[in-house]
């Protein structure tokens, strides 16, 4: 069958000693950089990828694949063990991953994310191979109207996962969108909300936002709570404690598969895919679960779903990226950059003209994932031990990482001050029990929301009906309404009961 010969070509390329070495190197490098708290996946990749300029394109891309996995793993480590997510998807992982770490089960969380990402990635690749052509043709049919509604759905899904009230989640998503409007408007080029600060012309940096709202705020919060004088949670460092037990496995395998499917679907849609995938899967798992209250408190299903979806989505994000030349995610944008630097133009002809490259790359992603899974085992112990350092010594180190990270990304002082501002904002959010991950989602998707809104209205001549007359759009909006309705109903039932559970 055509598929298997493609896979064969790919594996042939991926498994040469030359390329394997590059992949391995990439994974290790990525892990070391990615785990630095405060350096997100994207920053880590961008810091390392200049190294690839001097290599041939195939090897460069393969190394990038390794780097991608490594930084993803490192970023997950930081987000699970320290509640410092470097990207939107790790923000979802840490919702349950961090409580797990606090309960002494950080090792288990890390292990299961490695497995989930492997499964998700593999399923994503398989689906990619089967459905690539079909998905591309569907994706092309989505216009601004449909995209707008899709993003609305993503945002609503993002807010309904917050364990506090839905209103708070929606408010936080809106806040995120507002923060995303800071900077130059894409269409007119006028600066908005920059108050004359030049560096804000490009907007607030995502990494800075995340470090402030998650990292700094977390530190302030921990300092105020009872555990300030004690070590960060005692972790059982034995082998047995680091692997998931039967209960964990039983709870995880179905979410893993479901999330992989959902992730694969979303990943194939250009632009929005990956960010939304993790959130939506998490939300769905929570809705499907018979014990929704576990989510947010260390539910392994949450961690699994987020990771599997994210990885599956990243794999299928290849479809629009390589086939249409439109990046399906930020990582893909980097990939396109690498290709162009080497003089290769991504587009529909790429699969035909350079099958070695295309399939070799895809297979190396898979190989990278395998390498990661193998390396994962000895390394968990190291990271977990890292946290045995007493907190009053650890937190200044984390702050230093955050400050240096923020400053060195753009050699910009404004970024460091932004961390101060975001830290204050993030802490206030904790005080008021406003959930933080939706802010990140709103921030990332806000520009897309705006752009599609504009285009849609331009197409319809200012008529709002267009969002409902398009069937696909109406479906997306309908789902959003459904999600909100369900959550509101649940909240009303709960009204005299618990005041929404705090983030920790």
């Amino acid at each position, binding site marked *: 069958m055509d598929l298997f010969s493609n896979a064969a070509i790919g594996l042939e390329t991926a498994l040469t000693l030359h390329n394997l070495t590059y992949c391995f190197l990439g994974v290790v490098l990525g892990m070391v950089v990615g785990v*630095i708290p405060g350096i997100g996946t994207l920053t880590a990749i961008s810091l390392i990828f200049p190294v690839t300029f001097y290599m041939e394109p195939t090897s460069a891309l393969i190394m990038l694949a390794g780097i991608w996995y490594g930084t993803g793993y490192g970023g997950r480590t930081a987000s699970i063990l320290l509640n410092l997510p470097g990207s939107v998807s790790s923000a979802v992982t840490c919702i349950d991953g961090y409580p797990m770490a606090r309960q002494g089960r950080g090792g288990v969380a890390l292990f299961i994310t490695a497995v989930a990402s492997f499964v998700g990635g593999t399923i994503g690749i398989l689906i990619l191979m089967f459905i690539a052509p079909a998905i591309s043709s569907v994706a092309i049919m989505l216009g601004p109207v449909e995209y707008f509604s899709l993003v609305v759905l993503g945002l609503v899904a993002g807010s309904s996962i917050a364990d506090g009230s839905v209103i708070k989640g929606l*408010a936080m998503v*809106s806040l995120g969108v*507002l923060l995303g409007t800071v900077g130059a408007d894409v269409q007119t080029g006028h600066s908005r909300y920059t108050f004359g600060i030049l560096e804000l012309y490009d907007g607030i940096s995502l990494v800075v936002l995340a470090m402030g709202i998650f990292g700094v705020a977390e530190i302030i919060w921990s300092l105020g709570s009872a555990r300030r004088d004690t070590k960060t949670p005692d972790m059982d460092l034995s082998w047995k404690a680091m692997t998931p037990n039967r209960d964990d496995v039983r709870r995880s395998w179905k979410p893993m598969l479901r999330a992989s499917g959902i992730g694969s679907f979303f990943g194939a849609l250009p632009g929005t895919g990956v960010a939304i995938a993790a959130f939506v899967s998490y939300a769905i798992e929570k809705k499907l679960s018979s014990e929704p209250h576990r989510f947010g408190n260390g539910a392994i299903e949450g961690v699994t779903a987020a990771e599997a979806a994210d990885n599956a989505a990243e794999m299928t994000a290849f479809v629009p990226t390589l086939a249409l030349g439109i990046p399906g995610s930020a990582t893909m944008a980097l990939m396109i950059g690498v290709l162009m630097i080497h003089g290769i133009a991504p587009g529909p002809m790429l699969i035909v003209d350079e099958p070695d490259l295309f399939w070799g790359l895809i297979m190396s992603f898979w190989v990278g994932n395998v390498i990661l899974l193998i390396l994962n085992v000895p390394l968990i112990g190291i990271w977990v031990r890292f946290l045995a350092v007493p907190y009053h010594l650890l937190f200044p180190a984390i702050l230093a990482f955050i400050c240096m990270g923020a400053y060195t990304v753009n050699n910009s002082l404004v970024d460091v001050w932004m961390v101060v501002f975001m830290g204050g904002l993030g802490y206030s959010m904790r*005080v*008021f029990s*406003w959930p933080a991950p939706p802010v990140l989602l709103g921030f990332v998707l806000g520009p897309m929301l705006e752009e599609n*809104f504009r285009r849609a209205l331009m197409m319809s001549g200012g008529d709002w009906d267009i969002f409902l007359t398009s069937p696909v759009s109406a479906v997306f909006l309908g789902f959003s309404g459904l999600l909100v309705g369900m959550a509101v109903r649940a909240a009303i039932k709960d009204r005299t009961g618990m*005041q929404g559970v705090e983030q920790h």
Partner: protein
Amino acid sequence: MFSRNYKDLVGGLLLIGIGLSWTVYALRKLDIGTFNAMGDGMFPAMIGAVLATFGACEVSSALSRRGAMPQLNVRGAVFVLGGVSAFALLIVPFGMISACAGLVLISSCSLSGARGYQMLTLTAVICILMWVIFVLALGSRVPLAHWPF
């Protein structure tokens, strides 16, 4: 009176405030345009109003619910944010070592019982770590120590 949820009440009011000020700024300083041809202020103005609406929902639901008072760690907030600010102020004129030192010393004031000797060692360790990771490994050009006068 005492059965209101003050945390959400204040929170909701804050949200209304933030949303409204965003909208007002957009209306005054940015070009709104029409629905047909949106200017750059239209979207922020709308979302600001959306946020304010959610804030209002919060306020109204807070009026009829009990809730715990928020706990505030003012000392922690002041010293941690102060520490990061110190970093921002020190790094360009005085270089990385001073900036890290300032950060460590000030943010450690957020906890009682910090010992001077420990702080110094911690600062030294952190500076070395930062140097290894950012300067050696990642190659950023951050001056280590600098005297601007």
